[in-house]
């Protein structure tokens, strides 16, 4: 007997390849979205800093744009530089 597979429909969940599960700023899951977004994934992507910490892009931008702070990573307090 031989089994011929005609087509295979599978189910998968997508994940960000990141060290952590949750965003350090909004505490929501990376695979979810930041507080301002509705759709996860493309519409609410992650960014990595050179310090290797990552956040929802909207979260870190808000943080960096707030006037009180110098541009530091909210976790390790190093200068925030986007990872190229």
């Amino acid at each position, binding site marked *: 007997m031989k*089994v011929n597979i005609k087509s295979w429909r599978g189910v*998968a*969940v997508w994940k960000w390849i990141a060290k952590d599960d949750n965003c350090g700023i909004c505490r929501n899951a990376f695979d979810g979205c930041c507080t301002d977004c509705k759709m996860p994934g493309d519409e609410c992507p992650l960014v990595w800093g050179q310090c290797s910490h990552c956040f929802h892009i909207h979260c870190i931008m808000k943080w960096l744009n707030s006037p009180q702070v110098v541009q530091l990573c909210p976790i390790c307090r190093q200068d925030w530089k986007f990872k190229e």
Partner: protein
Amino acid sequence: MTSSLDQAWNLITKTPSWFGQADFNKKEVDEAIRIISINGLLQISQEWYLSSFRDHILTNICPSFWAHFKKASEDETEPCSLFQVFDAFKYLHTSCGLWLDNQLIRGLFVNQCDTLDDFRKKMKYLIKSLLFFKIEQIFNAYILTVYTYGFKVSKSLNPFSLDENSDKDESQEMDSSGNLEGECMICKEILSSVDSSSYKDMILSTDENRMDDGDDDRTCHCQFIMKLFIEMNDALRDLDLLDEISGDAVASVIHNHIEAYVIEKCKKSFEESFLKKLEVWIRNVIFKWRRLVFGDNQALITKASDERLMHFMHETYAQMRTSQMFDIIIEYPDSEPALEDLKECLGKCHGTRTKVINSIKDSFEARLLHPGVTTNDILTAYIQTIKALKVLDPSGVILEIVCDPIKKYLKSREDTVRCIITALTDESSELVPELAKDVSQTIDDVATMTDDELIGKNWKSWKPDPVDAGSLGRSKSVRQFDIVSILVNVYESKDLFVEEYQRLLAQRFLHNFECNVDHERRNLELLTLRFGESDLHSCEVMLQDISSSKRIDNRINAGEIEAHHWTHFPIKCLILSAQFWPDKLGLNPNEEANKLKLPPPVQESIKTYTQAFETIKGSRTLNWLPPLGSVDLELDFGSPDKKQSFTVSPIHAAIIWQFQEKESWNLSELSQSLSVSTALLRRKISFWQNKGIIRELSGDRFVLIDNQTQSCIAQSEFLLSESDDDEDYEDESLQESNNAGSASGQDVGENKHKVYWQFIENMLTNLNSLSLERIRSMFNMFACPNGSSEQPLTIQQLRNFLETKVKEHKLVFSNGQYRLA
């Protein structure tokens, strides 16, 4: 002078005995009256006249009148003869008539018309009070019979003039009942009770007259009876007795007739409005007949006045419809005319509201809210009720009172939410248009708004609540007929519904990859209008997932990305955002089947697919859920006619894949190579067994049934296992024999079971409902403690025992729980 006065007095006092006699000397009487009047004795003579009239009534009229009724009163069951009654009143009328009007009385009151009228009134009072100071029950029965027949006869005489809205049916009806074979049943029935020969002669003579007239040769005497009937009424009216004697009888004849007519005409159909027709009918038939009896003197008609009769008709109609409420609700919208009618009656008849409410409540209890009715049916009835009662009572009070039990009952059923959500989202369901109805406020808004806000601009059309609204404690404005809101509010919280909807959506997508996303999207939008956006956010993401994974899938399968090119078969993937899909549903990471090892070519494809995904979406990867999805495959047994196609789940595919390599597998071996537990494997492998592809040999060994083995194994055996039904049948028969075995074992311990039952009964009385497992553990803990001589009951024994009790209607088993019936 004195002698002439004496003579005059003598003449006058003798006169009454001459009444009606031919040799009555008018001149003498006039002269005598003149003499008496001259002597100023007129007053005294009048008084004497009245007192001698009284004596006459007591001594003559009274006995003769009541003699008419004597004969039949000996046997009360005998139907009385109409003619006896006619005779009696005729006699009364003539004999009193002589006294009421004659030359003497006219002479006594000459030139005093008003006084004469008053005097006659006094005389009539005398008749009334002396003759009828006590009316016998039997007499009333006689009168009732007379009027019952009177009505029938007048109806049969002129059915068309009486019954203007009569249609063909009715005329046929008349033909069949009234004039069967040229003979009138009604007068025949009446005449059968006639024993007075004088009337028979009269009837015969009128018959002969009619024959002579060349009239049709029907032997109908209705005309004659009618004449007597009218005469009797005229006589009674003349004596001012009509209302006292006949009022009640007429009213009850009319009431009976209205009742019968309403039920006959309207009971069967809800699809027609009857009230207007009934009103016309009453005017045409009943009022006409009443006029026939009472004449045109409206003052007489007190017990059967227009308003009373109309009211009675409305009441009768309402009563009938009230008893049919359940069917009316179920048949809505066909029954709308009936509801409109009933609504009109509600406004007119006091107390009908409560009756309607009670009737609906009772019929719900009896016909709807019990375990024999499926949740879907209850919901359908509920929706029907909402729609129907909206017509009946726009204030919504009846609806709220009546639906309270339904709500409570639905709450106690586990599948309610699921049924509601399924109904809401099923394309063919009647609820879909309801969902699409425009709602300006979400459910939350309405719940938090105050009365004033809700009444708002429509304050001009505001109406006060009906009286029975008080008990509800909520204000009218919150009451509404929006079916979807009402259904959702069964649980007084929308969260459950949102959760259930999410679950349902997930199941739909996971089981059917080709699901119609547009339809679901439209549904979701409609639901969002009601539930608000925030609660349905994750459902939105789910729909988004479906659409975007289709896009990605197309890109990858088009070969756009280097990493993945499908070689043998296409691989499609549903890419989910795990955070937004419900837990469980097989997505549970702890599920053992998640480790399922897929066939190597599939694993290879999945790997390259994942790589392709990673290329498209930087920094993201895929975690596959191997047990989910579906596979199209074909089993090739070597020859073209031996190809079989299946659509199966991945685990089935993985199992059959293993049998390519080796035709015989031990269960544990197979479990190891697929990384699936043996229990799950055994369950899944049965699919292939049922298809006749795999066969179990003894000792957990499974073999593939293919060409070569087929030839080795007996043909019959293969055929047996090929058919699904045979397999099921075998299983069942096996189980049955097991049951039978334990049942016979039960008989042995019959006495023991009495003790068991007592124990279980007490247990359930205290704890209401328990699952089988709880019952067993408690039972074995208390009834058969360790170390006692009793053997602990097995689950199977206990189940059988409880089953028998369920069959005896001592227990009820629902939702996996036993409770006392």
